[in-house]
Structures are given as structure tokens and as C-alpha cells.
């Protein structure tokens, strides 16, 4: 349906002006008229008509100049200008267009064609107005989206930085927008001086990619603080992601379980590019993906087998997201694994490796890219005594309970030794004892040592000298797994006793195994012990606890933690 417009007619010939005003007026439009260009510009400013019919040749100011000024005054708004001319020369038509003319109409005027052109221009006007409106709407929505992402990121950072990403031995590079690129980096001190590092890369971008990161981080930090093993954490994360993510979404991830104290690195890589263990001696060992990403497999078929590697002070660990390898430069070349490896191999001073890689990326792309993640963990000697290890920083929600008088004993027999990990459940119990909370990390360390000793040396009768050989680690853990699989008898029992009188009290942990027992005193005196819990481990237990004693046959070890007053 034709719209009524307000139309400015600029024409110096009185008869032409009158005729045109009559034609346009009869078609229902509102008309204002000007006899020259200067008048037209002034009228335009005052009346703001929606369309202009402009004669090209006029005194005072011609139509070309008037058209230019009107277009400028109109700004973003489209005010169509139709030139009234019987111009036959190309040059003049070009001048009309250059001045901002949108169409022409020749004399003599044909009312039907004139109205058709006015309506066509009006459609153009509406289109332009819609485009502007939508541009502004998109602009506002985009701003809103950015604000929301900022808020979401602030919340996420509270969760993600609950850990120890800022530890002095960790360097990482992640853009502030990494969360919305689906990249996720978490690191936490686990009990017993261990550290867990997880680099994840969700499929997809934007909010959906970021949403999966939240439960992942929560699970990672929550379970780490509660003393769960890396296997259990991984299983839980996988199960949770499988449950909440749509089918086409998953999370490629590498989880590092770093135990520098025992010299063991455990790695699980599902779908991320190779990470690297760069040994102090110069060896480069790839940390290969051997699994499907997290969130793909059902819990029943999920494979949480970690690769076990030896680890020593001076080693470095390097993890990266595929954004690093798959980033393209201006010539559409991939950065690629070969380039990364040549940077690593060319590096002679490991302390500059991280910078070398960054520089190589910068040189390759000529700019800083913001869709890749790179993290380096440096194995530095723990200069603080183990006893000072800060307790888990993750806030535990359980309410404080008063100490009681109780004891609890449980025994794990072969099938349970194969499948179960008694430590988290034990830690759950012990976390209820508020005076001990601040020492929970220490208690975990001690309990881990005692339990591992009981299982590996008491029940499985493993010889830890195996670890010393070239492939010692792999051999030892393969042997451990095999003996555990074949185990038909034997047990480990853990007895917890808690007693308190007034503000003071103690926790006693007793660990017994079915093995032949050993000479604890002799082991304590030895620098290294071949067959049993190492002298180092025993001395550490003695150092960390208030009392350390044992049955004469060496089959039961006891450790006591005491408290007094208000801890």
C-alpha cells in the first residue's frame, strides 16, 4: 500500500514547479517547494522531508551542490534524491550520481512513472531504516553479550583460580577470552605434596563451551581437596560431562598427576595434542593421547588408565591446545607439530623455552593470537619441609563438629584392594575432626605412605629396587598391576581411633597388612631400603606425626596426631 511521504521539490521554472507540485500533491504526498538550491537546503533543514525531487540546473545554487549538502545533513538516514532532468549527456548523469542522486526522471513528467519511482525510493528508505535499526540492535545485543561474558568469566575465575595456577613453577599463556574459546586450565595442590594439572579444550565456542567448564572445574577442585585420586576425579568428570553435554560436545583434556616427591608422573591424555616431558638430561618424551576425550564414553567403558613416567627435579612438562598447532599464518600455513618440535630441540636453555615458543609463534603469525593455550610446569625442588605444605585451599563446606570418642576399622581384601581406594572415604571421616583440619594434608601424606607400603610391599611383596633400572618405572607398575590382578589372598586393614578430653585429643592411625612384616628400626636407619618402605618415607612419617611406633613383628605401624587447646 503506497505511503504518503513529505517531499521537497526544488525547481526554478515556476510552471514546472507548479505542475510537479500538483502531480505529487494529487498522489497524496505532502509537498514543499523551493526555487533554487540554497532555498532547497534551507527548507530541508527546517522541514526534514523524506524525499527530494531536484532540478539539476538552477540559479543561486545548482542541484548538484544542493544534493551534496542535503545528503550530508541527512547523515545515516536515507533521503532519496530524484533528479528532474532531460539530461542526455552521460557526463551530466554521472555528476548527478556523484552528488548523491538516487534516480532520474525526464521531462515531460509522466505521473504514473513519477509515483512508481517515489514508491520505489520509499521502499529503499524503509530498507535502509531497517538495516540501521538492526545494526543498532546487533550492536546493543553484542554489548550485552560481552557484558554477560565478562560477568560469567568473573564467576568462573573464582572457581578456576581456587587452585594454584599462580604457583611459581607454573607458566601459562591463555587469552582472557580463552574460556569462550573452550580452553580451560586448572591446577591444584593435591594432598601429599602432589599437584594435579588439567588442560581442557571443549569443542565449540562461546557460552556453550564455557558452561561445561564450570562443573569440570568444580569437580576437579572439590575432589582434589577431598583427597580423591586422579583416576577417580577423571572418572567423575567424564561421567558428569557425559551426562550434561549434548552429543556433539566433548572435552579434549590432559590430566597430569605430578608426584615429584616420589618421582612419578602419571598422565592421562584424551584427544589433546602431544604434551611433552622434557627431562633435565635433555630427553623429550611425548605425552600422547591414548583415550577418547572426556564426555564421550559411558562410565562403564571409560578407560582411566594413566601412563606412568619417572619424574625428577629439573624436568619440565609442556601442555598445549590444538589451537597452537592448527593456527594459520597469513599464507595459510599451519604452525604444526614440526615447527614446535624444532623450537624445543633448538632450545639450549630450558628456562627460556616458554619464551622461545611464544616468540616463534609471534614470528610465525606476526601477531598475538588469542585462541590457544600453552602451559609449562617446572619441576623445582621443594625447599619447604613437607610438613609446611599448606592445607587444601578449597573451602570445605561441612560444618564443624566436636571431637568424639570413637574408633573405626576396615579391612580391604583382594577384590577391594584391586578396585577401591580407601583414602578419600577415610579423609571424609577425618575432615569431621575440626582441630585436625589444618593438618589434613600432612595426615593424607602419611596415610598414603602407610597404605602404599602395606599394599605394595606387605601384600604384593614388590621390590622397590626394580624402580632403579632403565625401564624401572614401567616395569614396577606393570608388575604391581599384574600381581594385584592375580591376588587371591591378603589384606590391609586401617584402624582409626579418635579420643578427646576437653580441648585436647589425638587421632591414631594403625595400618596392618597380611605380609611377613619387616624390621622397622633397621629400615629407619638405612639411607635406602631395598625391599620395604624406604628409610626416607619412614623418617618423614616420624617427622610429621607426634608419635610413630609399631608392633615388634613389623606387621602393624601406628601413627598419632595430637592436638591441644583450640587448634
Amino acid at each position, binding site marked *: 500500500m503506497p505511503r504518503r511521504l513529505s517531499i521537497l521539490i526544488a525547481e526554478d521554472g515556476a510552471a514546472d514547479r507548479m505542475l510537479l507540485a500538483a502531480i505529487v500533491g494529487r498522489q497524496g504526498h505532502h509537498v514543499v517547494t523551493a526555487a533554487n538550491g540554497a532555498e532547497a537546503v534551507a527548507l530541508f533543514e527546517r522541514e526534514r522531508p523524506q524525499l527530494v525531487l531536484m532540478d539539476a*540546473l538552477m540559479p543561486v545554487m545548482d542541484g548538484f551542490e544542493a544534493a551534496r549538502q542535503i545528503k550530508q545533513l541527512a547523515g545515516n538516514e536515507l533521503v532519496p534524491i530524484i533528479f528532474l532532468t532531460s539530461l542526455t549527456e552521460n557526463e551530466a548523469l554521472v555528476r548527478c550520481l556523484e552528488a548523491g542522486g538516487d534516480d532520474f526522471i525526464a521531462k515531460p513528467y509522466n505521473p504514473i512513472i513519477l509515483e512508481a519511482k517515489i514508491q520505489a525510493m520509499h521502499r529503499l528508505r524503509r530498507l535502509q531504516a531497517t538495516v540501521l535499526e538492526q545494526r543498532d540492535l546487533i550492536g546493543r545485543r553484542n554489548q550485552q553479550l560481552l557484558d554477560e561474558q565478562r560477568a560469567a568469566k568473573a564467576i568462573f575465575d573464582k572457581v578456576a583460580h581456587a587452585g594454584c595456577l599462580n604457583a611459581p613453577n607454573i607458566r601459562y599463556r591463555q587469552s582472557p577470552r580463552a574460556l569462550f574459546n573452550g580452553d580451560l586450565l586448572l591446577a591444584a595442590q593435591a594432598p601429599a605434596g602432589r599437584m594435579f594439572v588439567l588442560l581442557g579444550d571443549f569443542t565449540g565456542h562461546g557460552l556453550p563451551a564455557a558452561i561445561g567448564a564450570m562443573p569440570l572445574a568444580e569437580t576437579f577442585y572439590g575432589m582434589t581437596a577431598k583427597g580423591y585420586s586422579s583416576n577417580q576425579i577423571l572418572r567423575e568428570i567424564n561421567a558428569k560431562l557425559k551426562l550434561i553435554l549434548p552429543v556433539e560436545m566433548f572435552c579434549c583434556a590432559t590430566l597430569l598427576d605430578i608426584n615429584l616427591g616420589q618421582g612419578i608422573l602419571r598422565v592421562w591424555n584424551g584427544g589433546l595434542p602431544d604434551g611433552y616431558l622434557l627431562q633435565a638430561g635433555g630427553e623429550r618424551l611425548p605425552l600422547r593421547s591414548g583415550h577418547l576425550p572426556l564426555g564421550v564414553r559411558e562410565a562403564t567403558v571409560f578407560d582411566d588408565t594413566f601412563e606412568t613416567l619417572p619424574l625428577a627435579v629439573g624436568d619440565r612438562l609442556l601442555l598445549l591446545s590444538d589451537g597452537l598447532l592448527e593456527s594459520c599464518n597469513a599464507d595459510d600455513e599451519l604452525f604444526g607439530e614440526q615447527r614446535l618440535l624444532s623450537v624445543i630441540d633448538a632450545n639450549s636453555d630450558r628456562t627460556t623455552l616458554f619464551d622461545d615458543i611464544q616468540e616463534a609463534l609471534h614470528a610465525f603469525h606476526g601477531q598475538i593470537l588469542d585462541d590457544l593455550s600453552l602451559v609449562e610446569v617446572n619441576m623445582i625442588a621443594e625447599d619447604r619441609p613437607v610438613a609446611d605444605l599448606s592445607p587444601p585451599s578449597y573451602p570445605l563446606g561441612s560444618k564443624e563438629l566436636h571431637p568424639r570418642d570413637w574408633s573405626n576399622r576396615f579391612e580391604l581384601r583382594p577384590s577391594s584392594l584391586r578396585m577401591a581406594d580407601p583414602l578419600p572415604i577415610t579423609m571424609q571421616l577425618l575432615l569431621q575432626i575440626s582441630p585436625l583440619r589444618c593438618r589434613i594434608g600432612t595426615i593424607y601424606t602419611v596415610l598414603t605412605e602407610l597404605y602404599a607400603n602395606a599394599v605394595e610391599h606387605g601384600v604384593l611383596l614388590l621390590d622397590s629396587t626394580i624402580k632403579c633400572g632403565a625401564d624401572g618405572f614401567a616395569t614396577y607398575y606393570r608388575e604391581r598391576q599384574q600381581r594385584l590382578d592375580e591376588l587371591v589372598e591378603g589384606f590391609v586393614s586401617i584402624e582409626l581411633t579418635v579420643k578427646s578430653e576437653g580441648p585436647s585429643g589425638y587421632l591414631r592411625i594403625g595400618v596392618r597388612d597380611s605380609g611377613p612384616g619387616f624390621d622397622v628400626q633397621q629400615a629407619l636407619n638405612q639411607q635406602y631400603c631395598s625391599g620395604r618402605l624406604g628409610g626416607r618415607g619412614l623418617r618423614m612419617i616420624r617427622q610429621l606425626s607426634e608419635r610413630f611406633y609399631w608392633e615388634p613383628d613389623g606387621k602393624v605401624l601406628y601413627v598419632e596426631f595430637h592436638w591441644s587447646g583450640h587448634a
Partner: protein
Amino acid sequence: MAEHLDSRVLATLQEVMDAEYPVLLDTFLVDSEERLRLLQAACQGGEAESLRQAAHSFKGSCSNMGASLLAELCREMEETARREQLDEAPALIERIEREFAIVRILYRAERQRWHSAG
């Protein structure tokens, strides 16, 4: 009359202008006298570009009003001025003046006819 005024154009004008029709005719005649003066001045001053523009505008006006022959003469004038053949201009202006004199009579007659018909 047919070669001087286009009766189909006049019929359209009459329909569009309705009661204003005689005013339009008068306006055109007054306007045209002014345009003729501009033509003469430009010609005498030897200003080819001014002459061309004046002829161009007059041509457009005449075509709108259905003065076909006058429009055609203006077109020739415009063309001559574009080629800067100013020596041919005075003769052409004379022809334009003569044609305008005829057209003026015809428009006045048209106005009379409209009044008596209305």
C-alpha cells in the same frame, strides 16, 4: 495546431491541474518570457554555456507543457550552444521567438476554451 501543441499532454495537464489549469498556462507564459530574455542576453554576451543551460531549461519546460515544436527548437539551440556555433544562434533565437508568439496565442485560446467549457 497539432504541430505546435500536443493535445494529449494538454489533456493530462488539465486533469492534473484541475481548477489551477489556467493559472499553470499563465505561469508558463510569464516564465517563458523571462527565459526568452535569458536566451537573448546569453546570445548577445556570447556566453555559450549560459546559452546552453537556458535552452536546456526552456526545453524541459516546453516539453512539460506540450509545446512540442518550441521544445524541439530549444533542443536545437542547446545543441548549437554545446558546439559553440554562436553564429547560428541569432537566427535560431528568432525562430524560437516566432514559435513562442504562436504558442502564446494558442495557450490563450486554450484558456478561453477552458473557461467557457467550465
